[in-house]
Structure formats: structure tokens, C-alpha cells
């Protein structure tokens, strides 16, 4: 009898425990790729790996860098050495110890020339890495750089459990990641979901507020919204603009609408024979962003520069909407209007092809509006939708043709949806033009003054000087008119009312610490 009672009691306990378990299920547009932070940085993957791993620092709500695994840092007197003071007593999920040696190894692995990690192209080259003591690391750069810290604060540089990585091997790490984060990896069902659980030994003051997090892939956007409405998931990410109202009107639901630091640009190759300065300026004058905004609705807000006005170094490089001026510029270039309203010159039509991946919500709608607006001034814009791989390949091939063979590039126009991850517009600006890599898509010539301004903007110079440098870069962007910002993407999220403590990060780095499920 006693045995039965004990068994019954145990069952009740287990049941009670199970009922008290809280699981936060998030429906997203897709699944993760390999969860190795050195290899993958796409948003869907980083959103998950950033719950498991942490950086040395991260961005606070006001875009300031807040300490994470580095409790403090300072620039030494030589102006190129950053000293990082690390948190003590932090362990990885495997129990391995976090210390300066581990951070040093993480830097070395990220910058390994044989197999460079995803942030290698953004980080400045290092002179040396020196472990001062168990919890202090000196990083000496080749040249003064301030943005270096911003990269470390983005979801691009996460500290990986060295011993575990070396034990399981590079190829297998992505299937059993271990970091210092508030959530531990439990399971990955490829194509379906990733399950994380609370890290009870978390070092930080605010840890996981739920026992489990499930990142569920529901690719169809309508199905994702329906799953939220049926209550099967607690949150739906990337909700289409036209379905936000549906969630808002439903009972016990809430919505989060946040303008992000992601901007959609219509871009030009300025060496293309048809994309002369007059044509690029005409395009800039022909675009009416208010009309775009009306059509795309809650997908975004009008954009006039790199990143939204609150980003550091913001500069409005757009030209005013003035179709008359656009027509005048085209007339001046000798383009005459034909019977179908499209201009031509010496038998050549003013047709421009835009390569688009169409992955940003509202992108195709916005492009169709621009297509109509350009048609009104006599430019025939054709839209060609391709997948990401074909897109990159076409632009790289075009750029190489120009850089190496001096031939006119083949690509004409394209769109990019780029997000700032460092709070500063420099993240999205053209890298120094005199040292362009394969991604010289715009075919802009070496411009030493621009490069110098870029270099100052990324240096530890006082903010005023850096802002002045950003202004110089902004003026160049205005002069070149190679990137027409169309809109800043709005993040649309639907959630149950019971979800508390959720804050949307405009820079796409999700932080689930402190999120709880109420009644």
C-alpha cells in the first residue's frame, strides 16, 4: 500500500512539475543552418545561436555597448591596443571554464586565414593577441579602430566553448553548440525546430524567464499567423503587414511594430553605359517615397539615407521628388520620348534591368511603384527576380569584369536589404574604394578622400570628428546617387497577451532573457 502511495505521489509530483514547465514557442519563417557561429550569420540562425552564445559586449536599448562576457574594456595609451577585462567564474554549458585563453582562441579561429569566420571581413587585422592574466586579454590592432568594438557587440562575434569545439570537431559543433548564454541547446530537428532550455547556472543578473524555448519553422506566413491564433505557438515573427490587424483584433493577442535598422536600397552600377550621372539623378528625382509608403503599408517607413535618422552618422542623401527635373536631365542627355512613352537615344531604349531577390516583405510592391514612377519620366525598369546565389554570382562576375578586365560591367541595377548591426551607418557604407574586394558592385573608382573619411569614421577619434567624416561620406553618396534608399523595414511580430518582457531589437539581435509567460 505504502509503495503504491509513494508511486502515486511521485506521479503527482512529476505531473505538477510538468505543468509548471513553461515553454515559449516562436514561429519563424525558416529553420537554422549549421549552428556554428564561425560559419553562419544569417538572421534565422543568429537569432538562435545568440541565445546559446554571448559576445564580449552587446547593444543596449539606446544603442550603447553594454558589458557581457567582458565586464570592462579600455584603449591603452598606444591607441591601438584594446584591453578586455573578462567576467570571472563563468562556465560554458558543458562546464568548461571561460577565460582569456578561450577568447584569444575565438579571435584566432575567426581570423584563421585557412578557414576564415563570418566576421573576418569586418574585423580589422590584428598585430597581436596577448593573454595578460587569466581574465585579461590585450588585442593590438594594426591601425586605430573604434568600430572594432561595435563588431564585437553585434551578433557576429559570439564566444564559443573552445574545449568542446575542439573535442567534437568543427564539422559537428553546429549540432551540439555550447556557449555561456542563458539558454542551453537541447535538440535540433533539421527543417523543423530547435529546442533550448534554461541554463540554471547562468552567470548574469537576468537569466531565462521560461524553462524552454522552441524555435519552430513555419515557412508559410499565413499558416504562421493561424498557428498563433489557434494558440499552438506563443509568438509569430515576420508577420505580413496585412495580417497585423487580424492579430490585433483577436482576443488575448498583442502586436509589436518596430522600425528596424534594415533598409531596402535600389542600387546602380555607375559604370554601366546607360547609367550616366544624369540618368542616376533622374531616377533619384523620379522616386516618390510617400507613394511607396502608401502601397507597402506596415511593411516599412520611407527611407532617405543609410539607416534610420536615429543611427549614428545619419545623412539624408536623397534628392527631392521632382519629376520635371528628372525629365529635364534625361532630355539634356539626349534621351527622347518615344511613342510608347519610353525614351530612347540613337535607337537604344532607356531600359534598366533590376535584379531582385524579393525576400524583404514589401520589396516587390515597392519596386512596382518605382517602376511606374520611372515610366512617367520615360525610363523602362524591368524587374528580374533571382535567388540569392544567382544574385551574388551575377554581381560578383560583373564587378570582376570591370575590376580585372576593365570592361563595362554587365549588371545594371539591383536591390539590397541591409541592416545596420553596429548602430552606425558606417556598417552599411561602401568600404574603402581603393582596396575594393570582389564586391565592387557599384564600380566606383578609387576616391582617396572618401577612403580617408571612412577610416576616420571607424577610428577612435572623438565623435564630432567621426560625424564630420560621416558627413563627407554622405556628400559622396549624394554626389554618386548609386544607392536609392526606398524604405526602412518594419519588424512585425504577433504574440499572446501573456508574453511579458519582450523587447524588439531594431538591429535584429534577439534577447530572450527576462521574457516570461504570465497567465
Amino acid at each position, binding site marked *: 500500500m505504502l509503495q503504491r502511495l509513494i508511486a502515486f505521489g511521485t506521479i503527482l509530483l512529476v505531473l505538477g512539475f510538468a505543468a509548471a514547465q513553461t515553454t515559449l514557442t516562436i514561429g519563424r519563417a525558416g529553420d537554422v*543552418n*549549421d549552428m556554428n557561429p564561425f560559419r553562419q*550569420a544569417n538572421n534565422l540562425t543568429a537569432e538562435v545561436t545568440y541565445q546559446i552564445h554571448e559576445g564580449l559586449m552587446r547593444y543596449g536599448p539606446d544603442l550603447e555597448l553594454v558589458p557581457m562576457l567582458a565586464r570592462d574594456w579600455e584603449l591603452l595609451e598606444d591607441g591601438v591596443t584594446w584591453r578586455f577585462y573578462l567576467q570571472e567564474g563563468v562556465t560554458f554549458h558543458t562546464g568548461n571554464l571561460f577565460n582569456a585563453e578561450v577568447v584569444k582562441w575565438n579571435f584566432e579561429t575567426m581570423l584563421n586565414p585557412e578557414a576564415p569566420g563570418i566576421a*573576418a571581413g569586418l574585423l580589422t587585422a590584428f598585430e597581436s593577441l596577448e593573454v595578460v592574466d587569466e581574465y585579461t586579454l590585450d588585442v593590438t590592432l594594426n591601425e586605430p579602430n573604434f568600430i572594432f568594438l561595435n563588431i564585437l557587440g553585434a551578433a557576429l562575434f559570439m564566444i564559443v566553448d573552445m574545449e568542446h569545439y575542439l573535442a567534437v570537431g568543427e564539422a559537428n559543433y553546429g549540432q551540439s553548440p555550447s556557449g555561456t548564454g542563458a539558454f542551453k541547446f537541447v535538440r535540433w530537428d533539421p527543417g523543423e525546430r530547435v529546442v533550448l532550455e534554461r541554463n540554471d547556472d547562468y552567470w548574469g543578473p537576468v537569466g531565462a524567464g521560461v524553462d524552454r524555448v522552441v524555435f519552430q519553422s513555419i515557412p508559410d506566413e499565413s*499558416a504562421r499567423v*493561424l498557428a498563433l491564433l489557434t494558440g499552438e505557438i506563443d509568438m509569430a515573427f515576420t508577420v505580413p503587414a496585412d495580417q497585423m490587424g487580424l492579430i490585433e483584433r483577436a482576443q488575448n493577442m498583442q502586436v509589436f511594430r518596430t522600425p528596424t535598422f534594415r533598409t531596402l536600397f535600389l542600387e546602380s552600377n555607375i559604370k554601366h553605359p546607360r547609367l550616366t550621372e544624369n540618368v542616376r539623378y533622374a531616377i533619384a528625382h523620379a522616386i516618390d517615397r510617400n507613394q511607396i509608403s502608401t502601397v507597402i503599408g506596415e511593411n516599412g517607413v520611407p527611407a532617405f539615407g543609410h539607416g534610420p535618422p536615429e543611427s549614428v552618422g545619419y545623412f539624408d542623401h536623397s534628392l527631392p521628388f521632382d519629376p520635371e527635373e528628372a525629365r529635364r536631365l534625361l532630355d539634356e542627355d539626349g534621351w527622347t520620348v518615344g511613342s510608347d512613352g519610353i525614351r530612347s537615344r540613337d535607337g537604344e531604349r532607356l531600359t534598366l534591368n533590376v535584379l531582385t531577390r524579393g525576400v524583404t516583405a514589401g520589396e516587390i510592391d515597392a519596386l512596382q511603384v518605382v517602376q511606374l514612377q520611372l515610366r512617367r519620366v520615360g525610363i523602362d525598369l524591368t524587374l528580374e527576380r533571382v535567388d540569392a*546565389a*544567382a544574385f*551574388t554570382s551575377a554581381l560578383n562576375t560583373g564587378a570582376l569584369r570591370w575590376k580585372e578586365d576593365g570592361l563595362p560591367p554587365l549588371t545594371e541595377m539591383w536591390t539590397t536589404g541591409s541592416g545596420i548591426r553596429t548602430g552606425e551607418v558606417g556598417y552599411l557604407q561602401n568600404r574603402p574604394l581603393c582596396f575594393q574586394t*570582389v564586391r565592387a558592385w557599384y564600380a566606383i573608382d578609387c576616391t582617396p578622400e572618401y577612403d580617408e573619411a571612412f577610416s576616420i569614421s571607424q577610428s577612435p577619434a572623438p565623435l564630432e570628428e567621426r560625424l564630420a567624416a560621416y558627413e563627407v561620406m554622405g556628400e559622396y553618396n549624394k554626389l554618386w546617387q548609386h544607392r536609392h534608399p526606398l524604405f526602412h523595414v518594419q519588424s512585425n511580430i504577433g504574440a499572446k497577451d501573456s508574453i511579458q518582457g519582450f523587447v524588439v531589437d531594431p538591429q535584429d539581435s534577439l534577447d530572450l532573457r527576462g521574457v516570461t509567460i504570465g497567465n
Partner: protein
Amino acid sequence: MLVFIGKRMLQLIPVLFGVLLITFAVTRFTPGDPAELAAGEDATQAMIEATRTRLGLDRSLPVQFGLYALRAVQGDLGTSYILGYKVTTLIGQALVYTGQLALVAMIVTIVLGVPLGIVSAVRRDTAIDGIARLVALIGVSIPNFFFGLLMILLFSLYLGWLPSFGTGTWRHLILPGITLGTFSTGLIARLTRSSMLDTLEQDYIRTARAKGLAGWVVVYKHGLRNAGIAIVTVLGLNLGNLLAGSVLTESVFSFPGIGRLLVNSIFNRDYATVQGAILVIAIIYVLVNLLVDMLYAVVDPRIRY
């Protein structure tokens, strides 16, 4: 029969070699470079080259193909560039899910499609025939993703009977299974109707009726058995289609089947997974066709191998 099966199996070898060669060539000649994608947006040319070496894509095409074919013969289809898993593991998991879904869809097709076609044929030009034909027409015309969403709306949101996405229990299979089976149900119903109409007009049917046989015996034993060859052929092809996966249905119901695995791999230029998945799908088609040929002998005793 065994000789027949043996011969067909031998035919598999050139077919599969062809599939290996064609998928290898198509992936290599499609615009887009996996190294560029894997190296990330801010990669320098040197980083792209390093990634290419890491992925083994810096070798000449014949060497790449030779190595690939050699490993494939030993059952090693390589490792996914973007997921990090063995391709055989990924395909194995996806096939289990797709197989479950295909099974439900086949059951729906056979249980609904065939009787619908028979009723339609037997009650030709009546109101019942009209309704059955309309249902079949809707079945073949309605887009999967739209029908799937309607099903979720009704059975998950309004009635709350069934889960709207995912895997795990038999209940998760019902909505996607029915959705996936709609097209083939309509197709089979229409095919059954026309085959049955042809058959029911034959002299031997009139003879059977004249003998005084019961109506259902005439329809099933004399009618359906003779109309069966065409139905079995299409059902077989359909099974091949179902096992090749359905991207739309899998996307709506968030089902990690082989269709989505393949499409995602194509977008990511994950050559190893694309080649592996197509190879496996080709093997499935060949085996299903073999199965259909064997079933002919069961349906029609006049056929002997």
C-alpha cells in the same frame, strides 16, 4: 517474375549513373557559387577561395565527379554545406516524414477517389454524377497551399480538432495528408469515371447483366477489374510524385519532408544535398514503376512476366 525483376534492377545502374551525372552537371552549371554564399556578405576574395577549398570545390570538375560517384556507390552522399549533417541522415529523416504523408495521401486518394469515380460512372448524367464531377474538378483545380490554409482555418482555428503544423502524432498527419491527397483524389476520380464508362459499355458487361448477376458484382468484378490497369498505372505514378515531396503542402504545414529539403538546398546551392535528394527521388521513381509493373499481373491475370 524473378528474371523480370532482376532485369529491371540491372536497368537501374545506367539510370542512376545518368542521374548522378546530370544532377552533378546541372548543379555546377547553375549560376551561383556555394563558396560565395557560405563565406558571408563581407568576405574578401581570399576568404571566398579559402571557403571553396574547405568545401572541396577548388578541384577540377572530373575529379569532383569521380570522388562523388565513388563515394555515392559506397552509400556516402557527403555532408551538407549549410546544415553540417550527413546528407544520408537528412534524406533519411525527410523520407520518413514524406513517406508518412504520402501514405495518408494515398489512402485518401484510393478511399475517396476510386468510389467517387465509380459512382459517377454508374450514375452517369444524374445529379450524383454532377456533384461527383464537380468535387473531382475542385480537387484537381484548387491550389494546395490555399486548400491547406482553408483546412487549418476550419479544423484548427474554428473547431480546434487538429494541430495546424508540425509532426509527432498521427493527428499531425491528417490535415497535410488530406491536402496533399486532394489533387490525386480528383485525378483518380476523373480517370476512374472515364475508364469505367469505357468498360461498362463493353459487350461482356451486357452479357454479365443478362446472366442476371447482381449490379455490384457486375460493376466491381467485371467493370472495375478491367478498368483497373489505367487506375493502377496512374496511382503508381502518383505515389512516385507523393514520395518526391510537395514543397507547398510541406511549407503550409511546416512538415520537414524531402520537398522542402530539396528546395532549400537548391536556394543555398548545397550541392551535396541537392544531388543526394535527386538521386534518392530517382531511385524511388524507378522502384515504384517496377512495383506498378508487378501489380499489373495481379490486376490483370492475362499479364505474365
